[in-house]
């Protein structure tokens, strides 16, 4: 029973992180229709920046969120404005745009990753922050994990309210369901898409900061998180915020169960779930 609780809580903590990573990608694919494979690279940039700020300038990692978020937003915004907007205009239909933008984001992935290799070299970096253990129902967990989960849930709720209650949120939802009509109704569609892409990148940046608090970071870590984000998004349904959380927690719990039985097979289990899911229900749990 105690073991079960251990595994379940570890799964929830991991799941919160996965949900946060997936939310950004879900937004980018759900609204801007870009399956941004470079998503993990923004996570990596967030993590590496935090590491640099912490070890060189002794800046509190939680404070780095304020730096990493806006910078990532700005980068994402610019990238959509220059690259994906041009692709959107030159693609004859949505299917071709999705393929082309995916390939372009693969290009982006190689660009960001190798700039990071040149800037930071491939060494694994880590620092310790908030690592004192906290007792939850008899199981011990680092305080940093709890902070991460707290932030993931906080960001999820704030973002959900933003989508549901604000004018901009309404414009984003309109753009997601029908871009052409939204455009005719006076929504500045290019601006909305660029903002969505930027918000997705900002979430990745923030997730990177939180990941660097819990795990070691390195320049080639991006791909792993991109894949997890894609799996969670496919699991929960593309473009659904609650879906990202459900998918994230499911994957987190499965991950911690498999890690308990056979640690070498965690990634394999993720792929098996992913492939089965694509075959059985490609629209995901909450997808339409």
């Amino acid at each position, binding site marked *: 029973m105690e073991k079960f609780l251990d595994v379940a809580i570890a799964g929830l903590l991991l799941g919160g992180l996965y949900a946060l990573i997936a939310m950004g990608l879900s937004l980018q694919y759900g609204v801007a229709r870009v399956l941004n494979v470079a998503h993990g690279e923004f996570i990596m940039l967030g993590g590496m920046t935090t590491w640099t700020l912490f070890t060189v300038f002794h800046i509190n990692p939680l404070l780095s969120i304020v730096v990493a978020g806006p910078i990532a937003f700005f980068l994402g915004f610019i990238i959509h404005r220059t690259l994906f907007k041009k692709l959107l205009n030159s693609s004859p239909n949505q299917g071709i745009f999705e393929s082309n933008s995916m*390939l372009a984001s693969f290009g982006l*992935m190689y660009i960001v990753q*190798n*700039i990071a290799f040149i800037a930071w070299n491939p060494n694994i970096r880590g620092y310790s922050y908030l690592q004192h253990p906290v007792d939850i129902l008899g199981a011990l967990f680092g305080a940093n994990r709890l902070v991460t989960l707290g932030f993931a849930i906080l960001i999820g709720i704030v973002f959900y309210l933003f989508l549901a209650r604000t004018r901009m949120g309404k414009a984003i939802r309109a753009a997601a369901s029908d871009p052409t009509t939204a455009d005719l109704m006076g929504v500045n569609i290019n601006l909305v898409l660029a903002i969505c892409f930027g918000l997705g990148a900002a979430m990745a940046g923030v997730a990177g900061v939180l990941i660097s608090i819990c795990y070691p970071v390195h320049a080639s870590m991006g791909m792993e998180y991109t894949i997890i984000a894609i799996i969670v998004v496919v699991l929960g349904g593309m473009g659904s915020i609650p879906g990202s959380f459900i998918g994230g927690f499911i994957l987190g719990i499965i991950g911690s169960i498999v890690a308990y039985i056979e640690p070498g097979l965690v990634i394999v289990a993720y792929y098996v779930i992913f492939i089965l899911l694509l075959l059985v229900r490609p629209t995901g749990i909450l997808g339409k």
Partner: protein
Amino acid sequence: MQTLIIIINIIALVFTGWFIDWALRHDKKKKMLVPGILVLALIVIAALPFYGSTYSMILMTSILMYIILTVSWTLFSGPTGYISLAPAAFFGVGIYTSAILGKHYPIISVVIIGGLISFCLAVLVGALTLRLRGIYFAIFTFGLVQLMSAFLLWYEIKFTGTRGRFVVVINNQTIFYIMLVIFISLLITSYFIRRSKYGLALQSIGQYEEAAAHIGINVTAIKIVVFAISALFMGMAGAIMATRWTYVDPYSAFDSFISFLPVLMAIFGGMRQFYGPVLGACIFAYLEELLLTKFPYYYKLSFGIVLVAVILYLPDGLVGLIQTLRNRISRGRNAIFS
């Protein structure tokens, strides 16, 4: 001198690719000049071990490998528009066939078995992924490569206790000739597929899959067969290439970069004409040779930049660029004479 030899060989290879375009266009007219040049080009390539250095032979083997990957990728993905990111899976299957069977059987049979296992895997994957369209197919095939590498790594550490395997070494000349034979048989296969009704069926699948199904094309069967044929050649290339690397592990054998190379090379060269992918593969393979060992990060950085730039500015690749230039020149000429 070595550079000159390699450039001449690359020109001969691109010409060989262009010959398929020519043969597809001039089916009825029999002109002897072009086939004559083709024979000459093939002799130049095949005789390389007799006049070139070992280095140029090794480089040509890599160039041939990239051409095989790119042309066989284009065979399926070019006309249908399905972006397959599975080349690394089929290539890796070939590599591991060679690593496991290489010590016991002659190399020719290992290469053929490697190709056949890839073929079977592709039939399985094709049958499973039929319902997936667009980017879902791309993600599935991408995930497949990662799955195989993760599973194999777990298996090797758990059951064999080692990470990698040693592959039996074979002399460079044999590798070169086997690669050349695979290349030529790939060209012949592509030619016959393009010329047959199956080539037309593939193109109609790419343009409008439902319509293709409605006019009586067995969409499923054709997609699976052509996908599997392209995998056959990738597996064979992997099986022979492994003997040159001598040591393989799951990460190097199933490297997703191998999946992207053919995509980039084909898009960069242009898929409208047959020689486009050949040209793209030659240029990138040569670039890799120049940059990879000295500046690996800059090589992959340039890879990313070129990928983005080509998608943005050269949707038809170099071939499209050449045709635009040619049209502009001929239009200019007409303007003068008319």
